[in-house]
């Protein structure tokens, strides 16, 4: 288990808490706090789960992911929405790659608010929204994180935003939904292949607050049990069944 600085231990939502979805501590492989405004990257091995916990009322976390064994296969927001006929991700849905496979399954989710439409913040969007200052933004974070894996600007794709929602009105108008902050809520993402994940803990580009004050999140990689024959995500619909056949084929040899 990764050593945590003593000063951070007080912040931890200890996973052996009274929460009904508490993780058995013996299954925790990696745990860390990502401060507001920071970024974090990791490769999650197939079968393990990444839990992202909103500790204090998140203003949004931007996320990208890739097939770690072939990063030209990338998370695709359009396929994810259209294959599942819904632009709002929730428990039981999955994150599709652009190659007909599943990167991550949402096996648990107590937030209920995630956004596929809004994209991410940039230096330019920060300059418009906040008072003068050197505020971190997700576009630059993604670029720096990708460089660590030998990737670059062309690999920045449309992203997912956790813990936030953008509603669409009948005439197409996009409206940032206020009040989605739910301290203590979390989402569990089970890796269905080896997955490179980048989290940028910067506020959603449409979040209305003009004060740059992103909140910390907790990240926990844990050894989740293998999916059973009645697994929620693997059996969700005929498309998912085919998507998992395609994904499993990657590991057939």
């Amino acid at each position, binding site marked *: 288990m990764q050593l945590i600085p003593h000063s951070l231990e007080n912040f931890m939502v200890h996973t052996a808490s009274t929460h009904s979805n508490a993780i058995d501590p013996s299954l925790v492989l990696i745990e860390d706090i990502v401060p507001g405004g920071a970024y974090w990257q990791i490769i999650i091995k197939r079968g393990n789960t990444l839990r992202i916990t909103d500790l204090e009322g998140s203003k949004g976390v931007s996320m990208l992911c890739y097939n770690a064994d072939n990063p*030209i296969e990338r998370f695709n927001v359009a396929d994810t929405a*259209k294959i599942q006929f819904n632009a709002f991700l929730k428990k039981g849905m999955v994150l599709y790659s652009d190659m007909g*496979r599943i990167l991550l399954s949402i096996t648990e989710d107590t937030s209920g608010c995630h956004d596929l439409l809004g994209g991410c913040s940039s230096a330019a969007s920060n300059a418009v929204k906040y008072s003068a200052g050197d505020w971190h933004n997700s576009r630059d974070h993604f670029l720096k994180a990708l460089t660590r894996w030998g990737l670059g600007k062309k690999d920045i794709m449309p992203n997912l935003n956790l813990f936030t929602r953008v509603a669409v009105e009948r005439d197409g108008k996009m409206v940032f939904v206020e009040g989605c902050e739910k301290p203590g809520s979390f989402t569990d993402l089970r890796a269905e292949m080896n997955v490179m994940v980048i989290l940028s803990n910067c506020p959603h*580009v449409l979040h209305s607050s003009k004060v740059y004050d992103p909140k910390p999140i907790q990240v926990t990689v844990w050894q989740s049990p293998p999916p059973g024959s009645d697994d929620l995500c693997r059996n969700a619909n005929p*498309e998912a069944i085919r998507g998992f056949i395609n994904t499993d084929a990657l590991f057939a040899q």
Partner: protein
Amino acid sequence: MTAISTQLDPKTAIYNEVLPARHPWSRILKQGQILRIEDLGGNQAVDFLVYNADDPSERYSAADTLVDQGNIYLTTGSKLLSNEGRVLLTIINDTCGRHDTSGGACSRESNSVRFGLDKKYQHACVENFLTALAPHKLGKRDLVSNINFFMNVPVSDDGTLEIVDGISAPGSIVDLRAEMNALVAISNCPQINNPCNAYNPTPIRLLIWDATK
């Protein structure tokens, strides 16, 4: 803005060709040129990507475009923004009513998931994009969320999203003005498994005019 388009006479176009059903196409537009896409048969999805021709790592960004205009549909007046926040193209005229940039491009792989594992050898837009971009030394890394002209993808307030019967009448046109030198790639969508092409892919007409004035 419509006034510019009504002055556009096909006889003065420097390019005027029919793109057959299911085919790819690419072309570099010089700054100021106008590209017209005409939906000859009605309800034909035209998948579309655009890049800064002088530096294709700068490319169309659906999210930047939608957030800037605050609306998920593209129509007259929409500025197609790049990942650097600059305007690549402006839609200066649209007689269809609205266009999609949330539904993505079909691929052999997503076809196998959406419609059946046996569908993985059917032709698809990603194949067309790869063909169209290869002469410009671009490839899969350069594929991003695209535009679907003439495609109807409503999004409900509970997030429900579906490609449904189109609203584009035969003869619908969309005119795009290049605000920088722009590399355009088109896939005349070959999808036959959902209503995006009314189950019958049809040809489109492409015209280009030099900059006015």
